[in-house]
């Protein structure tokens, strides 16, 4: 069965419904006590409470601000580094090893340092998010640029492209699929980093809320926070991919699927 006749949303909705249903059943059958393994209905109720009290909006807004600024900063940094190491072989050789070394440091371990350097404010959390977001963008942009066919570069140079114009007109457009993949990965790694930063030295934010609920042993609120973070990440990912598709009509010509 190819499933071509079904509407596009049928498959994903069925998977999500089945997943939620099995989880709900597991929770209701008390495989674990419900307060240790809250089913989605409990999480939803907790979410509604948090919404009603206004703390959900406050937490989401706080996290959203940090997340957005951190991702933007991290993506710009990763893009700049990727263009540098991707298009200049000696830059790749000299800086690449160091960047790979830094890339493997778990950002959880950097949070205490960031608190010491930037204080307990927003800057620290934005910096950690940017750090987490920059590396996947850097690595993907570098890989994409290195893989650009020589003939496109030659053709463009004969037609008058050079320097940053060449990078923009050929390398970045050609490796759009890598740019998109890098940013999508950074949406996830940036979120990890932000949550790590919010687990200490924060007084609002979704990461803070999950950790705080854990300390209060409110597992339904913990679960609600976790689900909300995942849902927001997924939403932003879809919005991002769809906007690339619509704003850049040629994207399908360089990438079969984004």
């Amino acid at each position, binding site marked *: 069965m190819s499933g071509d006749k079904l509407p596009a949303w049928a498959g994903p909705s069925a998977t999500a419904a089945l997943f939620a249903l099995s989880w709900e059943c597991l929770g209701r059958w008390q495989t674990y006590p419900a307060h240790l393994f809250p089913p989605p209905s409990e999480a939803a109720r907790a979410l509604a409470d948090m919404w009603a009290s206004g703390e959900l909006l406050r937490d989401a807004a706080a996290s959203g601000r940090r997340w957005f600024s951190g991702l933007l900063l991290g993506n710009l940094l990763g893009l700049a580094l990727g263009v540098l190491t991707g298009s200049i072989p000696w830059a790749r050789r000299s800086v690449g090893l160091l960047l790979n070394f830094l890339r493997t440091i778990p950002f959880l371990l950097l949070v205490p340092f960031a608190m010491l350097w930037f204080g307990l404010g927003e800057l620290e959390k934005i910096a950690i998010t940017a750090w987490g977001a920059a590396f996947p963008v850097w690595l993907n942009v570098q890989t994409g640029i290195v893989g650009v*066919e020589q*003939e*496109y570069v*030659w*053709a*463009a*140079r*004969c*037609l*008058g*492209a050079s320097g940053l*114009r060449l990078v923009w*007109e*050929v390398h970045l*457009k*050609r490796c*759009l699929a890598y740019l998109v993949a890098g940013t999508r990965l950074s949406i996830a790694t940036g979120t990890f980093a932000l949550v790590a930063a919010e687990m200490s030295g924060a007084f609002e934010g979704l990461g803070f809320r999950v950790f705080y609920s854990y300390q209060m042993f409110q597992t339904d609120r913990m679960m609600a926070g976790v689900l909300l973070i995942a849902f927001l990440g997924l939403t932003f990912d879809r919005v991002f991919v769809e906007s690339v598709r619509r704003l850049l009509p*040629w*994207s399908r*010509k*360089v990438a079969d699927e984004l």
Partner: protein
Amino acid sequence: MSSSPSALAFQGVGHDYGEGPRLVRALDRVDFEVHHREFLCLLGPSGCGKSTLLHLAAGFLLPRRGAVLVDGAEVLGPGVDRGVVFQQHSLFPWETVAGNIGFGPRLKGFSRKEREAIVERYLAEIGLREFAARYPSELSFGMRQRVGLARAFANDPEILLMDEPFASLDALTRLQMQELLMSVWERHTKTVMFVTHDVEEALLLADRILILSARPGRVLSEFRITLPRPRSRFQLADRHLTELKGEILSALTSTLRREAS
């Protein structure tokens, strides 16, 4: 020597690939000139360094020995004075047909209006007006190669370098492309260096044909084609041209035999 330098000159050019025991001598002591507005064909067996010569002229490679001069100045890299038509069309897949043809003019800073006029003119010349908004992947191989030709001409270079542009096309499409190239070239006469291994193609297109030897590539002999233009492939049946074709073929086979022994 004439007072004005030739459009393109190879002076004692030699080039190798690799180093040490893996060194392959691709070209050795190559000397020739391409005159202004001349259509020159380089004809040689595969692996004789024809494409290397073209890449040297384009500035994609720098020669290990000797020098390549354009209008008397040494080639140090690619430039807009030399347009290239590649064997595989190498159109930008992210640009439409119009975007590909207008790429050079856009980078030169032409206004949208000027650009559209240029694109329109070349689309008409290659007969692909209704395909302006299509992407290269939506075209047949022959159409893509026509766009590749238009893209190079639209940038208005002094010299056109063509690297077996029709080699990957089927026989009939190749004939059409040769006719198209002749008609476009006769309208915008430019200096052309055209690499091929097809003797009839060279006879039809060239003012002059250079025969290259097999590795290392060197210029073996030279033939002048005085056939008046516009030309037709039916003239190739002419007795004089048939003899010329025989001479060229025997020159080519002798270099192959020399390599084999």
